[in-house]
């Protein structure tokens, strides 16, 4: 019985009508054509001209040649912008945490005092993430002028999106049994919060914040390009002044900052776990 079915099944594919095979073949051809068309339109839209890269390669080589050796005598003058870049990120992260914490309590289903507060907090968190940090920076520049301050504010407001969402998720996933146990001992709400909720979620929240600090350091470098100051701004200036040996020094510093921020943040998070 089962053998018959197998034979019928095997025979079925061999005996497909010719028109049907032709149709599948045509369909595959059309799909392949469509795939090629998508790739080609992408090449056209980005104006990809590989021959330009080939003919222009000596220009790149020239630039790199002029960038070595890095001008280490400029090192002292990079210290202040480096500190500025790191501090913009630190300030932004702190602002983000301060705004995100209360929002996360409203946006956590198990803590929120009302449905309306829950949706409002979720909307604020979503909006601050949807607007890119560069746009926030431009907004704050119009308010407080150019400099590191609008950059820090932009990072802070943009960070609320990620911090708020992850904080809220952490609070929602918390084990509620110890909380209910504390409530039943007669502790007041605020005591339950500080003795039960805070110690339970604090390490995770700190870990998330450290991760965000690492991301904000990288964002802070980019924000420097649009006038927030710091090492990004110095890089832009050196580029505009054709001081390529300083550019290479700054790139080395950025490399060191990004890599060590990542390592330190990861190591600290590991110790928290």
């Amino acid at each position: 019985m089962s053998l018959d079915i197998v034979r019928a099944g095997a025979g079925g594919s061999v005996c497909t009508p010719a028109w049907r095979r032709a149709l599948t073949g045509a369909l595959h051809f059309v799909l392949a054509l469509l795939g090629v068309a998508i790739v080609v339109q992408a090449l056209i839209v980005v104006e990809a001209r590989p021959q330009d890269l080939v003919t222009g390669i000596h220009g790149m080589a020239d630039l790199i040649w002029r960038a070595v050796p890095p001008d280490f005598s400029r090192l002292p003058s990079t210290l202040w912008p480096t500190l500025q870049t790191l501090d913009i990120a630190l300030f932004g992260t702190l602002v983000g945490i301060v705004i995100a914490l209360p929002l996360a309590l409203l946006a956590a289903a198990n803590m929120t005092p009302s449905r309306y507060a829950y949706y409002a907090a979720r909307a604020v968190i979503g909006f601050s993430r949807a607007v890119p940090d560069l746009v926030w920076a431009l907004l704050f520049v119009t308010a407080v002028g150019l400099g590191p301050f609008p950059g820090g504010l932009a990072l802070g407001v943009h960070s609320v999106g990620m911090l708020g969402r992850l904080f809220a998720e952490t609070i929602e996933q918390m084990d509620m049994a110890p909380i209910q146990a504390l409530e039943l001992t007669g502790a007041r709400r605020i005591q339950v919060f500080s003795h039960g909720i805070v110690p339970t979620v604090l390490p995770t929240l700190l870990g998330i914040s450290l991760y965000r600090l690492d991301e904000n350091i990288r964002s802070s470098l980019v924000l420097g390009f649009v006038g927030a100051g710091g090492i990004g701004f110095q890089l832009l200036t050196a580029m505009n002044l054709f001081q390529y040996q300083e550019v290479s020094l700054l790139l080395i510093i950025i490399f060191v900052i990004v890599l060590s921020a990542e390592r330190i943040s990861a190591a600290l998070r590991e110790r928290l776990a």
Partner: protein
Amino acid sequence: MLRVCGLSLRYPNGKLALTDFSLTVEAGELVTILGGNGSGKTTLLRCITRTVKPKAGEIWLGDTNLCALEGEKLRRARLALAMIWQHASLVRRRSVLANVASGTLGRHFGLRTMLGGLPPAELHAARGHLAEVGLADLAEQRAGTLSGGQAQRVAIARALAQRPRVLLADEPVASLDPEAAEEIMRLLQRLARSEGIAVLCVLHQVDLAYAYADRVIGIRNGRGVFDLPCSQVSREAVHRLYVHEAAAA
């Protein structure tokens, strides 16, 4: 010490969870409640702690009726009522001592305890309660590192820190190995005898009930079936609690 009279509760879906249920637990007495799954044991304890509000009946804790109280008055009256569960429900990231001392928060309300600090006056007593459950040397350890039996003993120490007159226990040994279970039951018995606490304990292990209880209450479909001194409870009566209704008829 604890007196429950004519307690009735209806679930939102219309089913009666408790029907005219009454019991008393005197100071120094260990009373266990036996009953099958869904017989209303846990609901009864939740009623007594006023986590849910009963439809009718009275819950007397000493000479206050918990059912007549709300809000702050209820919170104050309930301080004399401590509870432990199947799982220890400790704050795993805090030290054992901090967990025990947090049982006193209901008596201490100030800036320090609002900000997560422990009442310093209670730390010595908290160590005493830890010694009482035999874990004095683990005071500084994180609660998350304890074994199930140790964690349950810390939960009992936290309940003691509350200075209760009544201790409710909802299947306190259900997730423990037999040896740890015996240890917890011995501890509950000792607390009843030496501290004069009224202990009301929901159990699934019939043998433990026979071994440690002063009195056994049988509950079935939300009704009290028997309420007898341990020596007068027959095995058949207990067995009938767990037989499905259709099978019994």
